[in-house]
């Protein structure tokens, strides 16, 4: 009798196990088929709603204690640190001058190419409060959610480089999929060779760059940036460096990437909530279209123009010879008497006079010419250089 009961109990236990497994397999099948989490959002919200407030509380308490300690108690190295920071500011100011020059040049080039720039115009700083606790799911939870304007598919970055993207957003929390998860993907580009590829996570937790042909030359140490092709990450953000290159499958290289951001020890991140896309500064809709030949003419050395023809101003001879006429360039503001000066290139971004953009001797106006110096009446004009070296005022009269 005991044997019968024991056998019945074992059968019953097996039936329960099978039923539990079957229910979960069916649930998995539904979730895989349906893109909207297969109706599991409620369970996720409950779980996250129960667990993240505790982890958030621990993190914020720890931060508060650390702040109090560093702000009021532990001030031993503050003086030395202050000196170091001042030195750093001086160095950064010097770097800034160089970068401004580079940025101006890049802006002019973008203007010529009709580029649209992407600007990060909105970010939300967030703190990492939790992980998924699984080696098979490389994602983190941050303490900002839909209440703070965070939405799915927003890029998440750290000061060193990109981190991942928002996968799910809850009212006060968001799940961020890291770039080293096998299900993640980002469009990237090699900085020097300009080869494009896809950044993906590997099962062992490393990151790899895919879709680069085996006949391309890629060396370790080369920097990798976002390409903007995935429509998630803005173009030009640091991703990491090439750690190792080896032949991969199907004629592609296997490029192992060392991420710029330390994904294992993230504490604070930035969620990019708004990206504006518009033409570079100084580009207005009412500017005349420019031909490629004009741009080339501005950059290539040319034969010196013939001697200026004496003519009466206003007859059209100046325009024909490509020389500026004081009357033609006179803006709404006060015009100072024409002086003989070197031609000045005008900054397209703000109308401010800057140094010439082309190397010496490569303009089509190598000799000094007469030019009117203009002083704007109220607003700075949006004068732009034209291929003939004269200024063209676009300020309304």
């Amino acid at each position: 009798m005991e044997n019968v009961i024991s056998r019945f109990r074992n059968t019953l236990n097996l039936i329960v196990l099978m039923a539990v497994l079957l229910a979960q397999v069916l649930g998995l099948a539904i979730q895989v088929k349906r893109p909207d989490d297969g109706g599991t959002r409620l369970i996720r919200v409950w779980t996250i709603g129960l667990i993240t407030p505790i982890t958030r509380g621990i993190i914020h308490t720890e931060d508060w204690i650390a702040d109090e300690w560093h702000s009021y108690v532990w001030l031993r190295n503050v003086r030395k640190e202050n000196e170091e920071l001042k030195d750093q500011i001086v160095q950064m100011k010097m770097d800034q001058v160089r970068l401004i020059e580079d940025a101006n040049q890049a802006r002019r080039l973008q203007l010529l190419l009709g580029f649209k720039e992407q600007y990060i115009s909105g970010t939300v700083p967030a703190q990492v409060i939790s992980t998924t606790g699984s080696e098979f799911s490389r994602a983190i939870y941050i303490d900002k959610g839909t209440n703070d304007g965070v939405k799915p598919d927003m890029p998440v970055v750290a000061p060193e480089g990109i981190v991942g993207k928002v996968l799910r957003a809850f009212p006060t929390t968001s799940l961020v999929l890291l770039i080293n998860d096998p299900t993640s993907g980002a469009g990237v580009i090699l900085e020097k060779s300009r080869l494009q590829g896809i950044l993906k996570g590997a099962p062992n937790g490393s990151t790899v760059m895919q879709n680069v042909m085996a006949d391309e030359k890629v060396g370790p140490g080369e920097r990798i940036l976002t390409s903007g092709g995935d429509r998630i990450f803005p173009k030009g953000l640091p991703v990491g460096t090439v750690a190792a290159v080896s032949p991969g499958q199907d004629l592609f290289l296997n490029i192992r990437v060392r991420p710029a951001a330390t994904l294992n020890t993230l504490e604070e991140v930035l969620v990019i909530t708004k990206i504006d896309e518009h033409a570079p500064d100084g580009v207005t809709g009412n500017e005349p279209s420019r031909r490629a030949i004009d741009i080339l003419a501005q950059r290539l050395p040319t034969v010196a123009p013939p001697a200026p023809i004496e003519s009466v101003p206003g007859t059209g001879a100046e325009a024909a010879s490509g020389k500026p006429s004081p009357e033609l360039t006179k803006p709404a503001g006060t015009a100072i008497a024409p002086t003989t000066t070197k031609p000045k290139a005008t900054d397209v971004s703000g109308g401010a006079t800057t140094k010439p953009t082309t190397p010496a001797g490569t303009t089509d106006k190598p000799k000094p010419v007469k030019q009117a110096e203009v002083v704007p009446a109220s607003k700075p004009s949006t004068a732009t250089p034209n291929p003939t070296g004269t200024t063209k005022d676009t300020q309304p009269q």
Partner: protein
Amino acid sequence: MTIVQAKQERIEVYRFSPGVTIGVPFLALVMQAFIPVKLHFFNAFDLPLLVTIFFAVARRSQVSGCLTGAIIGIFQDALTHQPLGVYGISKSVIGYAASSLGAKIDVENPGSRLLMTFGFFLIHEALYIIVARGLVGMNLTWLWGREIRDAFANAVLAVVVFAVLDKFKQQ
């Protein structure tokens, strides 16, 4: 402590208070989610699995072990970005197997706990990868070095955790 007679052997079946039954798995989930923020290597541990094994072995009820594993696994799934049920299925099987094993052999001493957890961890990982690859289509690979290392680490941790949890067993 309830004593039941099975196959001429006296097997101890333990019970736990509702607070411990709910609180310990919950605490395990919180720790599993939080500790890797500060100590990344903690991702190698699977506290919810250890708790599943402990309850299953102590209760020695296959239905209870299976359901405990399923519930803990589903909540663990809910923290990840993957579909619910991958951890659930793996832990249901482990809960069932651990309670079956607990009814047959002595799993009270540290040596047997070490070996048992080592074996169950490997089975759990294998099940997880099979389910994730077969049913969800995830790109996961079995890495022997990592799995053996993690299994050993979890087995050592289990000896400590089980010793602590033994104090919550109701006499």
